[in-house]
């Protein structure tokens, strides 16, 4: 509390005043990314200057699928959660059973408000029996701190202090091995371990957002550039390429993964009450473990299940033709509006026209036939309106054995 306003402000607080001159920060990797960002095609990722594309978004995409792609994930929000009660605390805050998450493992999870509406999804890294890292798209410090009441746990935001890199693609394992991370071949999917780097350590996990073989690496910000250089040097002959978000976004859609505030509206951002979503309504029902004991939102979620009050469902669609159906309206029998496509693309891997869509139940749930999407394709200042058949299909849209193969293949 700042009760005694006449206390001298900390020098850190005064030094931070100058931030107004730099509205978009660089990440710890920025010097390297700026040098490669030939297109100067930036977007705002949580206050950071991040690339849509560096030089060629097609080739950046194919780097993920055929070579190895390096994507800077430093702007992702990161919280360090530590203490004797960290496990019990996270088990209460998040949906999945944290007691089953062993040290050295990662799981994808989500967390809800009291009414069972999803606040965000993210990945939870168990770095030790009492230390975790939670990564997410949005910011949740007040929520996490308030939830820590009566738990012996500290929650600290460490987004700026920790730099993150995703290395994804078939040659990613070989690059890490060649870079000298001995033992990295022992990492199975969702495993993590610490490796020596530049007088310190780097945490490497076999995780990613592409549905491909891949890894995520976290280092203290001041070791970021040496890590980048080490990977680039080792990857030269294996086609390593830095990429921007456009390419990654395609890969994640092929993998059937959702993005907060793109495929669903996070509860703390939803101004309109009907935009809130329960886990079952955005394909995250699998995370709910009714037997694990109390977790936030449990009562509301179980009641909604019991009373069949779930109103939406998120599905994967395969749409005839090859014209992407981005933000198209979904119809039943070509006439009744039943939902909206939140992400869509022609998948170069699946050679199919794929999409994620939110539908109003029972459509997409028990009624899956006779669904259509209306695509407005702008071609030389004219809409070509297409009514295309859509089929509900399981996600992911592509399944690559190399993602989970052990030991990982040496491409």
């Amino acid at each position, binding site marked *: 509390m700042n009760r005694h306003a006449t206390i001298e*402000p900390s020098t850190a*607080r*005064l030094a931070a005043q100058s*931030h107004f001159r730099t509205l978009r920060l660089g990440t710890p990797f920025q010097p390297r990314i700026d040098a490669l960002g030939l297109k100067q095609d930036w977007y705002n990722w949580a206050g950071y200057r991040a690339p849509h594309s560096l030089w060629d978004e097609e080739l950046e995409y194919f780097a993920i699928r055929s070579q190895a792609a390096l994507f800077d994930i430093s702007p992702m929000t990161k919280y360090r959660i530590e203490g004797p009660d960290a496990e019990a605390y996270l088990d209460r805050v998040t949906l999945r059973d944290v007691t089953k998450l062993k040290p050295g493992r990662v799981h994808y999870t989500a967390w809800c408000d009291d009414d069972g509406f999803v606040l965000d999804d993210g990945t939870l890294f168990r770095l030790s029996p009492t230390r975790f890292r939670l990564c997410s798209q949005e910011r949740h410090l*007040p929520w996490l701190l308030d939830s820590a009441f009566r738990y012996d746990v500290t929650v600290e935001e460490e987004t700026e202090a920790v730099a993150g890199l995703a290395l994804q693609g078939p040659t990613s394992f070989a690059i890490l091995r060649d870079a000298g991370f001995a033992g990295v071949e022992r990492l199975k999917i969702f495993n993590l371990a610490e490796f020596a780097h530049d007088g310190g350590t780097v945490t490497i996990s076999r995780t990613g957002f592409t549905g491909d073989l891949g890894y995520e690496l976290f280092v203290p910000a001041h070791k970021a550039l040496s890590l980048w250089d080490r990977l680039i040097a080792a990857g030269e002959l294996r086609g390593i390429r830095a990429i921007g978000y456009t390419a990654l976004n395609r890969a994640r859609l092929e993998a059937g993964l959702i993005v907060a505030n793109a495929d669903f509206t996070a509860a703390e951002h939803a*101004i309109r009450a009907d935009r809130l979503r329960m886990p079952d309504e955005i394909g995250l029902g699998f995370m709910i473990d009714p037997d694990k004991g109390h977790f936030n939102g449990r009562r509301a979620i179980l009641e909604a299940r019991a009373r069949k009050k779930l109103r939406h469902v998120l599905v994967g669609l395969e749409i005839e033709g090859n014209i992407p159906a981005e933000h198209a309206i979904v119809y039943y029998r070509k006439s009744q509006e039943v939902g909206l496509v939140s992400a869509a693309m022609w998948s170069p891997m699946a050679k199919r026209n794929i999409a994620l869509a939110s539908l109003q139940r029972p459509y997409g749930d028990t009624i899956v036939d006779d669904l259509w999407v209306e695509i407005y394709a702008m071609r030389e200042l004219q809409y070509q309106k297409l009514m295309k058949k859509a089929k509900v299909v399981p996600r992911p849209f592509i399944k690559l054995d190399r993602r989970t193969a052990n030991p990982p293949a040496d491409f």
Partner: protein
Amino acid sequence: MKAWDAIVIGGGHNGLVNACYLQRAGLDVLVVEKNDWVGGAATSRELTPGFRYSNCSYVCSLFRPEIMRDLELPRFGLQVISYEGGAVFTRDGDYLANYRDHDAHRREFARFSKRDAEAYDRYSRDVTRQCRFIQPLLMRTAPDPTSFKPRDLGELLYLGKKFAGLSAEEMALTLRFWTMSISDFLDEYFETDVIKANFALSGIIGTALGPMSPGTAYVLLHHYMGDVDGSVGAWGYARGGMGAVTRALAASFKASGGTIRTGAEVGHVLIRNGKAKGVVLAGGEEIFGKLVISNADVKRTFLKLVEEKELPEIFLRRVKNFKIRGSSGKVNIALDSLPEFPALSKDSPVYRADMHFTDSIERMERAYDDWKAGRWSADPFLDMMIPTTLDPTMAPPGKHFMSCFVQYAPPKIDGRDWTDADRDGFAESVISQIAQYSPGFRDRIVHMEVRTPREIEAEVGLTEGNIFQGELTFDQLLFNRPVPGYAQYRSPVGGLYMCGSSTHPGGGVMGAPGRNAAAEILRDLAKPTLHMSPAHDVI
């Protein structure tokens, strides 16, 4: 003898908006204004050579875009210059700024509290939800809940439906919002004193309540409402001062054939057989009109301009009890150079923003304690800005105009009238506060206009100097504004209407009361209202 179709008493912004709409509907309208200039509390006068002040109202934030469009204000010269956020100076030599960029805003808050920095999204979501609920009511006449007329029932149904459309949680929040204190509300989101003070100021501006008084959370909404429907470019300084708003309105009115008489103070409304027939000027001149519309506040209108015998007893009693307490003053300062604030770097956008020196809710509440005791605040709350950092037309080159809104200033000092010595003491409390943060400030002053509630009432005619023509507390809102049974701009006197901020939806340079009153008058005359844009949708 000529009889005008309508006579509007008072050339403030609502009177002019009302007159414009009536004139454009084909009526022959006269505006009578007691001062030698129009504008009411939205004026810009040159009191010292080369400087033009925003004498009372000082920012353009709530003015309805539908009205700007209908009355072609950009064509008649209105230009709004957006300004860049704001700041609260802290007593430890630092400051907390509000930056327009979302991430800069978060980083600035994080300098004080990482937690509060990340709490802003939820705060902003909840405030936006409430604004979205209330904002569509601004441009509608409030329903009369005791009437069974189809239109009132329809409007009540509209309100009911809007309310029923809220989730249980939102409904609870709405009721809490309309009744709780801004201090309690902010405690639910933030922990840092200066961050809470930063938001609390919108809950007390213009109100004779402290941040810990119930009802102040709503006042905050009232100040935020301009923002929700994408009224882009409507928030900022009016180029040339706030008088530019009423100058554009007057030009629009005259261009459509309207007539303005300045220097014409109304002594009373001429009433025959319970019906308004015109006005009698202070000098005795009679001007006849089929309708009379008062832009003056409800007290001035019915306690000064209308004889008691013309009014029903309960109405009169309610008007007498209508809360219209003066709570603020204004100090306008001409400066021979830009003041320096050592806490700010020279390139800080805060120079072009609104500045405050009250860094805790506790200090605001103590300032309010002085008001309750019948004194001006020894440590006042200032809303201070230097419009000439963005608008060079208001001062000679290199010189600056500083506008200081000051709270609290009571309508009476220890139960007696303000004296000149009181006024000077009040001004000194302001100057000494600024000088604490800006060394050498006193030496830059070349002229000062000090306006306590006494001056505001005497010149603008606002009873007790209340800038909203009546408190914005829940008991005086919607169908209770100004008094129950008379929330639809009509009065107990036939042909006499109200169009000032005493009526729904209340104060601020919004124009909605003037417009809504015009719609009711045209309805009574069975005239079309095609020239009035419907309120923008909030989707």
